């Protein structure tokens, strides 16, 4: 163990919440290091004396760890021991250390310690003020793409893996009375109170253990170390059935009506790949009756020259590393502060046996408990002073300190230089208001705490603790209690017995509003003073943006990129606003506010996708005969969510060969199609017929029982959106069919009209799509085949075209419809779906002698195209009415009720001349098959842009006709029979076609009528 320790030069001998008996090995930039269980990657790196953890993206400056939590801007790592398990951009301060962790920095060449790009940064950096890219790279115009490729290479942090993710992520829907965000003192107090009252509680915290600031404080609660109180509360909470405790879980988004998302790290805090079968991360989708935000505050660093040198840190982070991780990240500390609170860092540093060079306090007369404690320890305090610049190349070596005036905006004396390797700063605390902003609430500036606090919201949201600007432990605990009591009152639960733990009473002097430390040189000439580390935004850059006229804070942010990093400006935004406000001679609230959007911290895409990917991305809907199709070697087509058999290749058949075979077999003998996916709606009621008349364009008043009829359905605009056959089962009972893809839409369409327009009509609609298996046998031998399976008389005399009859088929009661989409003698057999496969197989059993051939959707398309039947969605596109389709026979303008679509199709533009109309297209070369989607022109020699007359909607090779058949739109086409249209194709060919009737086969309809 001592050996482990000796290598960790910054590790303290004792203290902290790490387990020194559990050493861990990890790899950083190819080199092995040791840490302990309980470390974060950041604390382990600091323990090992690693200073440089990244290079800045614009200037390639060396960067070190600045913070200890979600606000860390610099330590952004590539994690992963294998290609498939690479994770880009992991914040080292949020990554628990585990054995075998492999991390590397994301920028720097040849390595992060010696980055050649830093010379470019040093030399070229002067030419790279904010927005420089808007001012250059324009000339010559052709060079932009080259410039851009260099910009792209330089940008970006980590990289995506090249292999697919082996991990799985899932989601859980949660409901609770109170969701408490943050398990620090306020959150724990609130949770304890709510839990004892019997509320359903969820408490989540981003850290690996509950306690928040209490884990790194030296304060006592009830006279004992605060961590002991934490342990007691956690213990008690875990005893409640209705309390869900989520450590390692970031509440990342606060959405409307108290819907929040929590990303729980289940295994990725201890492995880059989840152990077999385990979930790597779980996204909780929480609906909370009340939310208590106890999210705490982030300490603001101060802005001074070279404040990005490794060794420059936020004060509280230094304390956290000492107290929680047993790491003192340096030897000689200078602490700069504008408040009492940060004195604790100097005390911690001192108590860890390290040297505090000086406390540099911007205030004239600091007083308070911590100040006194520092004085007692003999720490030197320089008042009315500031660190104006840090010096060093890869780590701070010295600092320049200067006396400041009363408001801290000017240097009023001579500069002294002191040796130090660590500069901790504190400009006060910024409440973590991020979640409270997500639903649109505007934060409110609070002068007392020099920060924004949550604004007024319509959400059922309460806040407690540092988020409100309450910083003392006593106050924070009290706020936790009262927020919980408020929530309980709203929930109608009574307040339980709870007593606040006793906390140390600490006197704190007034803090000073300080953001940007002046330099002896004007900001534009001073060493770079960073505001947003990750995006290399400096004080000078913000001033320049203001000078150039970017006066709204949103403009400043966008022009400089401030706050657009992966840390979303958690450290820098307020400082940036303060600098802009000063430049514009206005207050911070006048300059604007700072709005945060989800996510609070970045969320893995995989976790947001959950299990809805791969096999489960979208349901695959199957018919009852699906397994048979698979066995038969069918290729499938996606139609909506359905998997439909597309064609059934045999042996080495090409697709066209298979189609030719299926088409010929059907027209010459008999084929069979699984048509189960057609939408089917059972319609009952005395007004069913009236309703049909209103929603279809044709007449339904006289459809007799036992008869079927084809109908077109239009929108109010008169445009066709679906079609199908509806059968009259009984006087007040109909079965409607719809297209496979349109079933849900049609049912909604019927319902919305029934429920909102015509509730007086007595009719019920019920979907029976899945209930019936539908198989269509089609072809001259279809009757013979059917006769083999039924005793029922299916002769023409007893069962005419467009009749339906109940009968038993293959021993199963069936409804058989004599309707045809192929133009052949056809029977559509419907049986209860649990018997669909049985009947299907029986048909093949008996069909062998007729060479019964299964055909898929493609053959169905060809056969119907030979007959000129349309497919809604393929031959229509929402911009054509029945007359455009040449289907005036399917419109009854005489119906008493003005059916849906009637008025729309009579609008001025719908009745004009020269509308695009659907016609048949006969290529002059019978072998030429027009590509679907080809655009027709009347003059193929016309210059581009060439006037187009309409496109080809359906086009196939017809084996039956031994030529191509096609349909398409042509302007005024119905009056242009026999005229020519030309189709200039991408490959330079021009196909010539003659406008004709779309009915290529059996124009009199004799084949289906036998």
């Amino acid at each position, binding site marked *: 163990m001592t050996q482990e320790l000796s290598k960790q030069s910054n590790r303290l001998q004792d203290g902290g919440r790490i387990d020194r008996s559990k050493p861990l090995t990890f790899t950083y930039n190819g080199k092995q290091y040791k840490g302990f269980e309980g470390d974060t990657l950041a604390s382990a790196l600091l323990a090992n004396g690693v200073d440089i953890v990244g290079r800045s993206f614009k200037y390639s400056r060396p960067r070190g760890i600045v913070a200890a939590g979600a606000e860390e801007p610099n330590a952004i790592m590539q994690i992963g021991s294998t290609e498939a398990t690479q994770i880009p951009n992991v914040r080292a301060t949020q990554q628990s250390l585990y054995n075998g962790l492999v991390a590397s920095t994301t920028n720097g060449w040849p390595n992060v310690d010696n980055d050649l790009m830093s010379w470019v940064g040093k030399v070229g950096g002067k030419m790279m003020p904010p927005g420089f890219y808007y001012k250059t790279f324009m000339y010559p115009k052709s060079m932009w793409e080259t410039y851009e490729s260099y910009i792209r290479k330089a940008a970006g942090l980590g990289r*995506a893996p090249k292999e*697919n993710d082996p991990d799985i992520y899932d989601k859980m829907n949660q409901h609770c009375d109170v969701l408490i965000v943050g398990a620090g003192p306020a959150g724990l107090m609130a949770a304890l109170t709510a839990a004892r009252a019997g509320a359903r509680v969820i408490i989540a915290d981003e850290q690996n253990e509950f306690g928040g600031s209490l884990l790194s404080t030296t304060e006592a609660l009830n006279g004992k170390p605060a961590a002991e109180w934490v342990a007691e509360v956690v213990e008690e909470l875990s005893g409640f059935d209705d309390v869900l405790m989520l450590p390692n879980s970031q509440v990342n988004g606060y959405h409307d009506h108290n819907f929040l998302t929590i990303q729980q790290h289940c295994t990725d805090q201890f492995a880059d790949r989840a152990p077999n079968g385990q979930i790597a991360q779980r996204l909780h989708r929480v609906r909370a009756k009340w939310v208590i935000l106890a999210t705490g505050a982030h300490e603001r660093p101060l802005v001074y020259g070279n404040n990005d040198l490794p060794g420059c840190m936020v004060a509280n982070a230094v304390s956290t590393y000492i107290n929680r991780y047993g790491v003192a990240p340096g030897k000689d500390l200078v602490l700069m502060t504008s408040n009492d609170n940060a004195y604790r860092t100097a005390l911690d540093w001192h108590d860890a046996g390290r040297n505090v060079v000086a406390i540099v306090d911007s205030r004239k007369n600091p007083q308070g408990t911590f100040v006194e404690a520092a004085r007692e320890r003999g720490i030197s305090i320089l008042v009315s002073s500031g660190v104006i610049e840090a010096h060093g190349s890869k780590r701070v070596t010295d600092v320049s300190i200067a006396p400041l005036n009363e408001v801290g905006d000017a240097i009023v004396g001579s500069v002294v230089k002191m040796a130090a390797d660590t500069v901790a700063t504190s400009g006060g605390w910024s409440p973590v208001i991020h979640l409270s902003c997500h639903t649109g609430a505007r934060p409110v500036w609070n002068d007392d705490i020099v920060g924004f606090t949550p604004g007024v919201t319509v959400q059922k949201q309460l806040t407690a603790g540092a988020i409100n600007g309450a910083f003392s432990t006593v106050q924070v605990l009290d706020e936790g209690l009262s927020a919980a009591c408020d929530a309980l009152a709203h929930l109608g639960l009574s307040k339980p017995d709870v007593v606040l733990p006793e906390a140390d009473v600490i006197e704190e002097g007034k803090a000073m509003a300080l953001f940007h430390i002046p330099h002896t040189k004007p900001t534009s000439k001073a060493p770079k003073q960073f505001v947003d580390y990750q995006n290399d935004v400096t004080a000078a850059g913000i001033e320049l943006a203001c000078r150039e006229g970017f006066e*709204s804070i949103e403009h400043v942010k966008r022009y400089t990129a401030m706050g657009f990093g992966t840390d979303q400006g958690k450290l820098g935004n307020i400082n940036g606003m303060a600098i802009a406000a000063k430049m514009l001679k206005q207050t911070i609230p006048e300059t604007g506010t700072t709005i945060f959007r989800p*996510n609070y911290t970045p969320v893995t895409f995989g976790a947001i996708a959950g299990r809805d990917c791969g096999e489960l991305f979208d349901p695959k809907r199957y018919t009852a005969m699906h397994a048979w199709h698979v066995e038969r070697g069918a290729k499938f087509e996606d*139609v909506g969510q359905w998997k439909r058999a597309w064609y059934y290749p045999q042996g080495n058949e090409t697709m066209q060969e298979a189609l030719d075979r299926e088409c010929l077999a059907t027209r010459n003998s008999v084929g069979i199609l699984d048509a189960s996916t057609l939408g089917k709606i059972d319609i009952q009621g005395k007004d069913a017929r009236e309703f049909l008349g209103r929603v279809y364009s044709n007449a339904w008043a006289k459809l007799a029982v036992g008869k079927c009829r084809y109908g077109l359905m239009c929108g109010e605009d008169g445009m066709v959106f679906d079609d199908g056959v509806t059968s009259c089962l009984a006087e007040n009972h109909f079965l409607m069919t719809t297209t496979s893809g349109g079933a849900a839409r049609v049912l909604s369409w019927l319902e919305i009209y029934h429920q909102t327009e015509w509730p007086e009509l007595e009719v019920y609609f019920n979907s029976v799509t899945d209930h019936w298996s539908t198989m269509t046998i089609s072809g001259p031998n279809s009757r013979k085949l059917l006769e083999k399976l039924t005793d029922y008389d299916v002769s023409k005399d007893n069962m005419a075209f467009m009749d339906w009859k109940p009968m038993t088929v293959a021993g199963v009661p069936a409804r058989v419809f004599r309707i045809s989409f192929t133009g052949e003698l056809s029977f559509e057999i419907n049986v209860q779906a649990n018997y669909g496969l049985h009947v299907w197989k029986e048909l093949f059993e008996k069909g062998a002698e007729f060479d019964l051939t299964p055909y898929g959707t493609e053959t169905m398309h060809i056969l119907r195209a030979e007959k000129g039947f349309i497919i809604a969605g393929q031959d229509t596109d929402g911009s054509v009415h029945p007359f455009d389709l040449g289907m005036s026979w399917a419109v009854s303008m005489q119906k008493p009720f003005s059916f849906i679509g009637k008025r729309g199709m009579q609008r001025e533009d719908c009745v004009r001349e020269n509308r695009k109309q659907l016609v048949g297209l006969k290529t002059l070369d019978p072998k030429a098959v027009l590509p679907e989607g080809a655009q027709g022109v009347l003059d193929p020699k016309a210059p581009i842009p060439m006037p187009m007359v309409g496109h080809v909607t359906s086009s196939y090779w017809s084996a039956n006709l031994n030529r191509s058949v096609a349909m398409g739109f042509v302007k005024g086409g119905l009056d242009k029979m026999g005229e020519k249209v030309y189709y200039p194709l991408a490959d330079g060919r021009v196909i010539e076609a003659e406008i004709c009737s779309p009915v290529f086969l059996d124009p009199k309809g004799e084949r289906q009528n036998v």
Partner: protein
Amino acid sequence: MQHYSGFGLLKHSFSHHENWQRVWRNPTPKKKYDVIIVGGGGHGLATAYYLAKEFGVTNVAVIEKGFLGGGNTARNTTIVRSNYLWDEAAHLYEHAMKLWEGLSQDLNYNVMFSQRGCLNLGHTLQDMRDIQRRVNANRLNGIDGEVLDAQQVKEIVPVLDCSDRARYPVMGASWQPRAGVARHDAVAWGFARGADTRGVDLIQQTEVEDLIIEDGTVVGVRTARYGDIRADRVGCVVAGNSSVLAKMGGFELPLESHPLQALVSEPIKPILDTVVMSNQVHGYASQSDKGDLVIGAGIDGYNGYGQRGSYSTIEHTIQAIVEMFPVFSRVRMNRQWGGIVDTCPDACPIISETPVKNLYFNCGWGTGGFKATPGSGHVFAASLAKGEMHPLAKPFSMFRFHNGALVDEHGAAGVAH
């Protein structure tokens, strides 16, 4: 106007960048203008720019209630393409595309227009029919485009899953090489700077509270901050507020304002070199120069002015992205946001005269307005300058919703914008 160039940057670096001029003034409005543009987004600023530069109308004010380019210009996913189906739309967007192609030089402001190409994927037979139809129409309209098969798509975007493993395997795509992305903020700022230089007054932080209408003719606008400002013509270009402004004019528009959400990943090294869009799987992505994957999908189904939408939309979008690009599963989403899009029933804009004389509206761009910015500004400027709609704008009259002459882009092609 101070000329921008690399040399200029070098020169200014010696004076520590202390001498850059303001990009625009911060003027107090005059009592009267020839033209007032309400709305200082990309389209409004482009209108002002072209009014001044191309049509010699410089007595112009742009009145913006917030900051310039702060609406949908600041919130979109910056895709620029012109491969629309119908002639009317194709010509309008191609007009914009041609302006995009010289825009940085014209404005002397690098809008970072990057013609890296756009793929619209097809996953079903009907998708492929629609793609063929659209690309053929584009080609005959003089717009670049080709139909690719799955193998060719894979060559352009190696990280796209083109295997049969996918729920909806990629069958092919349309490919417009001249399409691409641009830097959205820069577009607004470039137009603003160009307009300001030519004398246009850009009035920020000034909300128009009413339109002043006398005898059925608009004569100016009423603002809280500066009172009445009069004008001969008023053009409203206020995406996300069009219906609100129309109500001031006493009429309704055929618009619904919906939330449209978008999101970005954390920045990663270059991995996606083109724009990839899929309607069936329902999502699209490109990668910004900064390295963020810029991702979007469809609108939320309800009306909303809150600049935010429902989380389920984000979930579906990410599912689509992970389905298309399984290697992005471990990339992390940094930020999401929402815009307010005014959608028209036919997914095409309104560039139109209105029932009020001398009042013109340019709105209803739905989810696809950014790509049209220069073209929209140019034809609207021409219309405002002459008091007569530009030929490219004529098919987009609001009155097409009376006579039925819609230009139904989603009905026909179903292309995500």
